[in-house]
């Protein structure tokens, strides 16, 4: 038998695997619900903020609306917009690092959790409290993402994902040692319906079931970095940069395209086959039925069918929204437009959107 272990048999096995995988996922392609295409929100009346308007720096990494105030993570500290005024908080106020790259607000307690380049910071009642890999169980100080899930706070760091139970003050961390990832590099985390998803850089999407404490991973089934063999066979690439979950849909962003998972099947989106502005997606945030995609070539909003993509013109302040609905494309011009096309963060509340870009922060109001 040994001698028969040759190329043919190996090829057969490989193909078999493919067959099964393809079968499993091609079916799901039909499943996404068809939605009213015009329901994707369109934002206008853009207003932009830069250093000249009071931001501490132009590079804004993250934005989060918290009631009457807007929290903005910049390279130079946390900027807070309240009563039309900006206030900046830095390490001098107690931030663990001025580079604030992720923000979440606990619905339960109202505490603000800040993922910085030098640790996690809790901002509660005006007081900053630092968690670092030195003083706590946190895996690494470069906190790419932070989310609050009830009493738990989850972080994705350069050394693994972590969960802080704010009741027991205990950290649990998830790395290649106890979760299905090759390496402990995590980039994003989201939660919902008793599950937590971690974007593991090079490891696809890791799903953690809070009830069973079990993990499973979703990786690109073709097993190769340089291609995506089938777009709907799984997450489009193992190098995931963002995950966000709402209304039963998990969105997974990569630098190679976008994936959507409805619990049964995956669907992939690329710039060439959808309204997605670019395959290079820095960040994804889904709210309700919509995913907001921060790319290097503008902001895209989609419900999985229809798309609105915001782009600023190269040479002036104006720009447009490109509305893609199947084959049809329409455009709408804005003056001014968003601050910059390289988008790093987004948040929406009610009919207002805030967009963090490589050069300034933008605020838009829904106009449809």
């Amino acid at each position, binding site marked *: 038998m040994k001698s028969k272990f040759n190329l043919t048999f190996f090829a057969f096995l490989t193909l078999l695997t493919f067959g099964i995988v393809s079968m499993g996922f091609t079916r799901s392609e039909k499943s996404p619900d068809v939605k009213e295409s015009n329901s994707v929100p369109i934002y206008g009346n853009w207003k932009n903020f830069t250093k000249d308007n009071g931001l501490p720096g132009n590079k804004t990494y993250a934005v989060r609306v918290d009631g009457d105030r807007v929290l903005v993570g910049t390279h130079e500290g946390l900027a807070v917009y309240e009563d039309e005024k900006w206030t900046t908080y830095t390490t001098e106020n107690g931030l663990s690092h001025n580079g604030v790259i992720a923000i979440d607000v606990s619905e339960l*307690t*109202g505490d603000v959790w800040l993922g910085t380049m030098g640790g996690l910071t809790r901002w509660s009642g005006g007081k900053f409290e630092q968690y670092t890999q030195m003083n706590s*169980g946190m895996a690494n100080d470069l906190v790419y993402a932070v989310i609050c899930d009830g009493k738990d706070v989850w972080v994705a760091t350069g050394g693994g994902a972590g969960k802080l139970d704010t*009741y027991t003050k205990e950290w649990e961390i998830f790395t290649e040692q106890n979760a299905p990832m090759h390496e402990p590099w995590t980039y994003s985390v989201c939660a919902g319906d008793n599950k937590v998803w971690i974007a593991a850089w090079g490891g696809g999407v890791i799903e953690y079931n809070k009830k069973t404490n079990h993990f499973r991973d979703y990786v690109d089934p073709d097993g190769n970095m340089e291609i995506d063999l089938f777009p709907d066979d799984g997450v489009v690439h193992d190098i995931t940069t963002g995950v966000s979950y709402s209304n039963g849909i998990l969105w997974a962003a990569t630098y190679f395209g976008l994936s959507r998972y409805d619990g049964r099947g995956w669907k992939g989106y690329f710039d060439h086959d959808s309204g997605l502005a670019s395959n290079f997606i820095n960040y994804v945030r889904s709210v309700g039925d919509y995913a907001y995609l921060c790319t290097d070539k503008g902001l895209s909003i989609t419900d999985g069918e229809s798309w609105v993509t915001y782009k600023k013109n190269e040479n002036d302040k104006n720009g447009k929204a490109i509305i893609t609905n199947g084959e049809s494309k329409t455009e709408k011009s804005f003056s001014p437009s968003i601050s910059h096309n390289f988008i790093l963060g987004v948040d929406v509340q009610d009919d207002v959107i805030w967009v963090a870009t490589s050069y300034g922060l933008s605020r838009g109001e829904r106009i449809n």
Partner: protein
Amino acid sequence: MSIKRKKLLFVPGFVLVIGLLIYFPGRKHAREHVNLMTAVEDHPLKCASCHLHMIDKGPIASWLNADYYSPLNMAISRDGNTLYVVAQDANELMVVDALKKKVIQHIPVGKYPHSVILSEDGASAFVSNQWADNVMIVDLASASVTDTIPTGNGPSGLSLSIDQKYLYVVNTFSSDLTVINLERKTEVKRLSAGNNPTGIALSPNGEKLYVSSRRAHMVPYGEPTITDVTEFNTSKNRVSATMEIDEAYLMENMAFTPEGDLALISLIRPKNLVPMVQVERGWMMNHGFGVIEQTGQQRIIQFLLDEPNSYYSDPFDILVSNDGKRAFVSSSGVNRISVVNLDSIRSLLQNYPEEELDYLAFDLSFSRHYIEKRIPTGASPKGMVISADGSRLYVANQLDDQVGVIDLNTFENLDPIDLGGPKKLTVARKGRQLFVNAGGTFQNQYSCYTCHPDYHEDGLVYNMAGKDMGRNVTNVQSLREINHTAPFKWNGKNESVYKQDGMRFSTVLTRTEAFSFPDLDALASFILTGIKNPPNLMYNPSGELTAAQLRGKEIFDRTVDNYGNEIPEKGRCVTCHPSPYYSNFSFEDVGTLSESDDTIKFDTPHLNNIFASAPYLHDGRAVTLEEIWTKYGGRDQHGVVNDMTKMQLNDLIAYLNSLGSAELEAKEQEVLKAEIKN
């Protein structure tokens, strides 16, 4: 003389001779032993000092001791006729007829109850059980516990929202605030609340809730001592602000004036950053209260209770008279209640700018402007209540099992209410009275309890100065369950508590007359037998280790590193920290001596309930257990750790956090041994 008689004489004679033979060398030996253990040469050689009064378990211990009530906090019915007294050591709520001055009911509650408040309709009482991590709802009509609601760790101060829908519980050990929805009778959220909080006060309009911390921010030695008051918005049930109270800590209780113009905090102003070279001029501890203005500039101002040659140490409760004109502060260290004229305070606030008032908080003579009277109390006055008609002030005199009664028209004491505790004063009880009393320090400036609140530690690092000033900064060590953990001090110089608290102690620390031998007997007896670790409900509630803790235990016990190399004996955790005390009571250099330290080896500290005694290492440099190894592990001097993954370190720390009382550990060991025998 018959032979029989000779024989009769011979026997006692023989005994006498043998006795003398034993007595003289024995006495010499005893003298040497006692001199070593006490560091004095004139101890009366009473064996009972150490060998009787320090027995902490068994029939002898129970024969020596008595079950006291130790009332801590109280509530009073609206008609002023009934007092509800938390008897901390008896785990019960006592119902006291205030008019007849008689205990009428004993309602058993949870372990080590802390506070009690009543519902607005007076139908039920809420009791926080600090060592059971729950609050109980007591139906007062039937005198029975109707509900037990789990809380965070170490529940203490209690408050009800103004609409009676929410119960707020301060969790002292876990440093947060539990919000209980009283309709659902369950905790709905837990909000962060400073460090080691206890005090709680709701503004009269019900909008604002304050919680006062006892421990200061954990900062490197040299940075200011600052402690938080956390403000909560009761409509959103969220933290709304944090007020940093400079140069203060141990803010045990808070109160609002009825008109809501001022919030008051009892506090201590420690002098831990200045070299401890004298007591004169308020050089060690000052005691006072803080005022948070609720109108205008909303300044936070502190006032001293002290006077230049007299200190009112360990202020515990603070209470405002019903007319808002006076505040009462119980100072458990000097058995006094200070009467503060709040109108004088208001006028000072009006007439002085903040900067000057901040300065005046250092002026020991300033209290003459607002202290009206000092009312003497029984031993260790703690919680207070005022009757609804404003005529009586009741104070829980914790250590003589009485409730003191003060006529608020004359500020004179009336006959106290005897709660019926044991009439005998045991040696340990006397020790506890001494422990909390500031009489042992020059001009009553502080008591043992000041730096060892809850008989534990205050989380501060002091400059003990040694021979030179600025040297030897020292993290206060806990006194919980230190029996059997000799020697004492970080350098292990004291073989006994007797020596620790003896002559040298008075020369360099208390700077007044040293404790007498009977007092030392009592003090040592209390310290060694009367101070228990609270159960480790935070990390080890069931006594069974979690998976992470078990993995951590393996690391604690490991003999080979991740690469398969054998770890030298000295590099293993378990070598120096063997159970049940997790100390081998020997000396080691773990590489954390600093330049400003004298060259010593460290007495290996015991690790029971280690989670509760941050900061760590002899000078408190490690704010968390992690920092011991992430920042100060050096080149594997404090155990071989540098091969470990972060997850392994987390497991190790999970295990360390699980360590509880040595008594439990010892039991486990016994079981283990028994199993081996079988």
